[in-house]
């Protein structure tokens, strides 16, 4: 600080600064879309940074990336079909899978028994198929379906506890598809998922 920068000079500076700063103190506001744009980035990165510990993470409730364009009818027309195959009743038991129709009834398991449910998804053009649901906290990358022996058929077996579960498929990492053969569940934002009930009987209707 210069030696001659005395209090008088400081006062002069302060007065001048006050005149200059006045107009600069006028309030500014962000663009109305600012929050939305920030949150889009947050939703893209958030699930990896802060995995949800709640049953359905917020990215699923808000994110619109995975909206379904063709729903059941279009999906079927495109050759997509989903069948849930129920395994033997207890996890670890010998699997004797059989395809189910919409109302699948299994042999009656004990109510507290985890059941291995085989999800089958048919989409010949898919490069990848993931399964998301409340059983994996709607976390992408957790349950990937594998190609079966048949062309275009993707499968995954998931242990499910008794009760009602919601799920959906993600095709090629970006396209959200509800099971066209199952009961639909629509959330507050219009996104559809599917419902499976596991218990004394397993059903997608």
């Amino acid at each position: 600080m210069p030696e001659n920068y005395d209090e008088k000079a400081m006062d002069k500076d302060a007065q001048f600064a006050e005149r200059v700063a006045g107009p600069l103190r006028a309030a500014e506001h962000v663009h109305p879309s600012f929050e939305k744009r920030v949150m889009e980035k947050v939703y893209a990165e958030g699930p990896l940074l802060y995995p949800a510990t709640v049953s359905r993470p917020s990215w699923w409730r808000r994110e619109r990336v995975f909206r379904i364009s063709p729903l059941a009818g279009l999906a079927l027309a495109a050759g997509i079909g989903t069948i849930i195959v129920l395994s033997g009743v207890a996890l670890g038991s010998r699997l004797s899978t059989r395809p189910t129709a919409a109302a699948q009834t299994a042999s009656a398991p004990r109510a507290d028994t985890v059941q291995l449910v085989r999800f089958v998804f048919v989409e010949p053009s898919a490069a990848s198929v993931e399964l998301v649901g409340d059983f994996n906290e709607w976390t992408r990358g957790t349950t990937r379906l594998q190609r079966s022996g048949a062309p275009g058929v993707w499968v995954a077996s998931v242990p499910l506890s008794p009760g009602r579960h919601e799920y959906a498929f993600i095709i090629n990492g970006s396209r959200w598809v509800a099971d066209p053969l199952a009961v639909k569940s629509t959330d507050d934002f219009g996104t559809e998922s599917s419902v499976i009930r596991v218990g004394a009987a397993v059903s997608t209707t």
Partner: protein
Amino acid sequence: MTGPSDSELIAAVLAGDIDSFSGLVRRYQDTCVRFAVRMLGSRVDADDALQSAFMRAFRNLRNCREPERFGGWLYQIVINECKTYATRQRRRELRFTPATNVIERAVAPGSEPEGDTDVGGHIEYALGMLPAEQREAFLLKHVEELTYDEMSAMTGVSVPALKMRVKRACDGLRDLLEGVYHA
């Protein structure tokens, strides 16, 4: 402050409820934007810098050691982000005409320059002529009205150095605005 506290919102985000971050964005976006706009002289650049700042805050939320003081922590990030943008952004096409002490903006005929704001144009242009570190110090002291201790805590620059920057900023502005304010 209404609604959940900053600490509560941060705890929710860390637990996976990333929606809660929107509460922090809403709470602080307008607080930070004034400094960003004045510092960068452009709403477009300020918007970019603020987005980057909020995302840096989001990614580093676990490192916010005092969640109840999130605002100050975020402000530090905004200051740093603006500094980065200020060094990167192309220099605004300004020229100072000493003969008349009138600050003009050199733009192509018929074009609308970026960065128009509602505050007195001359002041903003003069501010844009200052070195970034002087501009930052002036804004923090006289526009954001922080104390030198607060400025030092946020910028990591010593109080005497900050006082010098503010003085030089005042000297520079006085020269630049002589014809406007008869300073």
